[in-house]
């Protein structure tokens, strides 16, 4: 079943084309990677899908529905969640609050019910708390739940970002360089962890990653960007042997 599809999405900033005619297709349950040199427009693609940027051209469909012009919060509500490359936690808030906030979009009680703490709100609050604790348990942050989120070490902050994204109850999860800054052991754990959450939460995962070990290890398909253009698309094996990809990564020796 098709979850997400983009049709020729293009993003221009002034004269610069950051992404050109990107055609993505994600099927349910897949893990797909987006790779490419720095500045190739990968994060821009994420920003278009999540509504942070409106594409200059093209359409985005989520489960067949056109979401191109939707606001980011509405897109999240439909079921697309993301993490950020440069980690955007709510820095001064506790770990548990970070996760609780991501539950807010599903709160049905209105402001007055919440203020008066009516039973309906109390129930929602309780189940929010329970779910958040479960998520922290899964990502292994339950022991630090009351710490200020900015005080966590880097690896933990990345895991908290994933927990927070999961709390919005997504069906499609976009991970922006989840392994950045991790050591080999952590990277290996992360690979397993991504697979595990895909299975446990019934997710479709689309990730930007530089660690080839992670990319080749878990992705079923890979898109390769260079200067905003999709230069290759295929399974890990095809990508590894693709001449254009090798050139993009290693550079072409003009004198050869």
């Amino acid at each position: 079943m098709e979850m997400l599809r983009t049709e020729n999405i293009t993003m221009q900033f002034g004269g610069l084309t950051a992404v050109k005619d990107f055609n993505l297709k994600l099927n349910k349950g897949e893990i797909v990677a987006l790779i490419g040199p720095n500045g190739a427009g990968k994060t821009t693609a994420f920003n278009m899908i999540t509504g942070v940027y409106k594409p200059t051209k093209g359409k985005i469909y989520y489960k067949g529905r056109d979401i191109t012009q939707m606001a980011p919060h509405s897109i999240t509500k439909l079921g697309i969640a993301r993490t950020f490359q440069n980690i955007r936690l709510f820095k001064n808030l506790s770990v548990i609050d970070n996760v609780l906030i991501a539950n807010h979009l599903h709160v049905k009680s209105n402001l007055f019910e919440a203020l008066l703490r009516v039973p309906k709100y109390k129930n929602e609050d309780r189940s929010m708390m329970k779910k958040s604790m479960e998520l922290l348990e899964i990502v292994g942050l339950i022991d630090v739940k009351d710490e200020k989120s900015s005080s966590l070490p880097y690896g933990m902050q990345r895991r908290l970002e994933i927990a927070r994204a999961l709390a919005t109850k997504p069906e499609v999860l976009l991970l922006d360089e989840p392994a950045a800054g991790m050591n080999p052991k952590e990277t290996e754990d992360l690979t397993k962890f991504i697979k595990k959450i895909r299975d446990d939460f019934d997710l479709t995962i689309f990730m930007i990653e530089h660690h080839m070990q992670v990319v080749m290890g878990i992705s079923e398909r890979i898109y390769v960007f260079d200067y905003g253009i999709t230069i290759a698309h295929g399974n890990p094996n095809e990508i590894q042997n693709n001449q254009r990809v090798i050139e993009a990564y290693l550079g072409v020796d003009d004198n050869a």
Partner: protein
Amino acid sequence: MTSIMFLQHLANGISLGSLYALIAIGYTMVYGILRLINFAHGDIFMMATYFAFFGVFFGLPWYVAFPITILLTVLLGMSVELTAYRSLRDAPKISIMISAIGASFLLENLAIVIFGGRPKAFPTEEIFTKVIHIGNISIQRLTFIIPVVTAILLIILSYLINKTKTGMAMRAVSKDHETARLMGINIDRTISATFAIGSALAAIGGVMWGLKFPQIQPLMGVMPGLKCFIAAVIGGIGSITGAVIGGFFLGVSEIMLVAFFQSMTGYRDAFAFIILIIVLLFKPTGIMGEKISEKV
């Protein structure tokens, strides 16, 4: 309404607009480089009128007093930046804005303490205020002097920004502090220079303002300050050409509003804000502004 009266109002509007433009440039330059509303700018303008007042009061001829005024105002502007803004460069924006408001209040109240709250009469110099007659129009010389001085200053400014090293540094810093630093630009010095230029223009504006509206008091900078910031927003904040256009637009339309709709005179001070809100709603980047989008 005869066409002569219209011309007379237009001349007044242009000369008020020139003053707005001079002050608006200070706002727009500081905003361009620090992304900060320098709330104290209107008060720096006010202090300039007092410097000039005391210069002449103590017997200096105007051609000595006014340059000293400019010098003192520049020093004041630079010291405001040094004390109130510099140490907050990496602080949350809200802190910097609060500091700016604090600086503005401090200057206003210091002025009340030092100069007294009562309005003072700005010395009028015959050579500026003499009324001249052209046909049926009688107009103060000043009404012509102001736009001319403004035009000269704009030419100097544009040379400074586009042709000198400091100007280039300013443009670089306003694009990206980090990159500019890596290129070997001294950020602090460049920002200081920006405040110096803004304050110098405010000082000249202040002196001419005092000559045109010869009554000065410690809170006189508040309204022109706000209006000039609005002028900068209308023109597109960060753009010097925009500030000038915005200043003229606001000055002329304010005078015309009062001239043509006498019953609206009481609302004169609200007018600028209404324009501001309209501009922000329909074209938040102003006439000349570029869109600044946040990096995600």
